[in-house]
């Protein structure tokens, strides 16, 4: 029997597992999280008075169906939670479970690793009380907590409005929503958003509700600095010539999502630059094939949202089955391809409406921290580049300045680093390269002195 390993138990990974189970395969489903569901559709920790249906709002049905599906297939899947996959080596995954090392052999690998927040740093962003936008949602769903008493939601993302509304509906004080993309730019992106009118209407409804609750929504303003002595006391904003400060004790910062592609990189996927997302994305065919016996699905392949994640998970599993001697009905494949393509088209529209503020990243002041792991400033990068024969490519800059080499391995600073390097080198963003994935893709939480098995 074909040994299939799936990494990621979010919407994409769960759908893929279900399709394989239906075909009589028992996949290994690995996830470093303790509970299934992935990022947006996560399972709260036990013992919370959290009404997930209310919190998920219009997604409640999808959330409940996905978890129902997982429960139904649970005993036909080799589900291994709290298991980090830290390397891919040929047909072997290297894993770590609660400090213990192990290996998983596979014939086919399906990566459904999802996405994490992409952020533009600003002065003061390392203060306690500044968290990612996704983190602000994650801590609410996972732990039933708000990130602060007066929270400002700052960045460029459709999830700003959603998160602010989730906080507001549960009784948090939302200080403001600050979206760096001017309203005109959003209007210009409208035609691209027609691919999913339902989601578009939902976004407009979020705005109306926030406004009705008296929460200021600023379009086109950018953070100058996050202020405060030991913690957050306010966020200073600029819009044109106007500067002002909003009082708050927490900031949720987010500028869209970025696929977790390090494992795909190690498994041999090719990458291509995408000018709309301003990201290097793994190349796949329409079904998610990224190489021999390598399949990618969900946000880890291309940001598409939870619906696209589910459909692409089913589709990638169908491709895997077809490639391993189990032809799939043509009509099913066609329908799934169309759905995935439509939903991802919509996300491209969103990426235009909520653009990554490249200029803001490139203009990060010299004394502002760029690499929060090791406390390296934007100025240190610029100075290293200004040396005779200084580096002009991100991996070279990393080797010399250590930005991107710390604990997060460039997950947090990588996108801003690319813009700073491009601006300092006078090169196009696409020309400065991409940080290559390296094993271990995350620091391995092995116990001191423990030897990796095998």
């Amino acid at each position, binding site marked *: 029997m074909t040994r299939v390993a799936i990494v990621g138990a979010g919407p994409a990974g769960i759908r893929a597992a279900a399709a394989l189970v239906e075909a009589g395969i028992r996949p290994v489903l690995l996830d*470093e*999280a*303790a509970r299934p569901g992935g*990022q947006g559709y996560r399972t709260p*920790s*036990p*013992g*919370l*008075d*959290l009404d997930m249906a209310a919190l998920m709002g219009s997604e409640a049905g999808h959330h409940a169906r996905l978890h129902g599906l997982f429960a139904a297939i649970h005993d036909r899947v080799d589900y291994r939670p709290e298991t980090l996959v830290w390397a891919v080596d040929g047909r072997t995954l290297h894993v770590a479970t609660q*400090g213990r090392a192990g290996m998983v052999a596979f014939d086919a690998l399906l990566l459904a690793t999802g996405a*994490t*927040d992409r952020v533009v740093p600003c002065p003061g962003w*390392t203060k*306690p*009380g*500044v*968290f*990612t936008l*996704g*983190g*602000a949602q*994650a*801590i*609410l769903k*996972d*732990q*039933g*907590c*708000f*990130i*602060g*008493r007066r929270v400002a939601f700052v960045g460029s993302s459709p999830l700003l409005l959603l998160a602010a509304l989730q*906080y507001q509906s*549960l009784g*948090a004080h939302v200080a403001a929503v600050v979206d760096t993309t001017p309203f005109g730019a959003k209007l210009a992106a409208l035609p691209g958003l027609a691919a999913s009118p339902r989601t578009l209407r939902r976004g407009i409804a979020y705005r109306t509700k926030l406004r009705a609750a008296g929460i200021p929504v600023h379009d086109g303003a950018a953070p100058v600095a996050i202020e405060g002595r*030991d*913690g957050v006391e306010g966020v200073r904003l600029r819009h044109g010539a106007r500067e002002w400060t909003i009082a708050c*004790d*927490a900031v949720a910062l987010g500028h869209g999502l970025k696929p*977790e592609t390090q494992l795909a990189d190690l498994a041999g996927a090719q990458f291509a630059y995408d000018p709309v997302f301003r990201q290097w994305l793994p190349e796949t065919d329409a079904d998610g094939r990224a190489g021999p016996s390598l399949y990618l699905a969900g946000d880890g392949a291309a940001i598409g949202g939870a619906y696209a994640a589910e459909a692409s998970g089913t589709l990638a599993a169908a491709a895997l089955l077809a490639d391993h001697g189990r032809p799939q009905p043509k009509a099913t494949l066609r329908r799934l391809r169309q759905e995935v393509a439509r939903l991802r088209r919509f996300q491209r529209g969103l990426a235009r409406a909520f653009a990554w503020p490249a200029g803001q990243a490139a203009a990060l002041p010299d004394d502002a921290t760029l690499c*929060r*792991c*090791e*406390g390296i400033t934007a100025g240190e990068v610029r100075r290293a580049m200004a040396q005779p024969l200084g580096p002009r490519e991100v991996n070279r800059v990393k080797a010399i300045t250590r930005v991107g*080499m*710390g*604990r*997060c391995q460039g*997950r*947090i600073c990588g996108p801003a680093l690319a813009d700073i390097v491009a601006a300092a080198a006078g090169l196009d963003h696409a020309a400065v390269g991409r940080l290559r994935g*390296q094993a*271990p893709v*995350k*620091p*391995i*939480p092995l*116990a*001191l*002195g423990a030897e990796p098995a095998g």
Partner: protein
Amino acid sequence: MKNVQAGVGQFVPAVRRHGAPIRITVDGEALDARAGDSILAAVLLRRRALRRHEFGGELRAGFCLMGACQDCWVWLDRERRVRACTTTVTEGMRIDLDAPDEEPASFD
């Protein structure tokens, strides 16, 4: 570490937690948590920050809250490094915020 010790938390409960009371220690100081809490939630519900940054000593409280940034590392029983945001508290858990001297070299 005045702010770190302050009785007021950075996080605020949005809903009630029913889990059983759990006692943990952080740098030797007892801290009340509840079953189901992550280490980070247990600490930040009661303090404004988690730890001091190893380069420069500024206060930090984690950042991504989903296991990506590694800004919330703490040590269990002085022998195992874990992320506070993704590790659940257990009774008697002994947490240290700084690495023991024999921390292995970094991973680059």
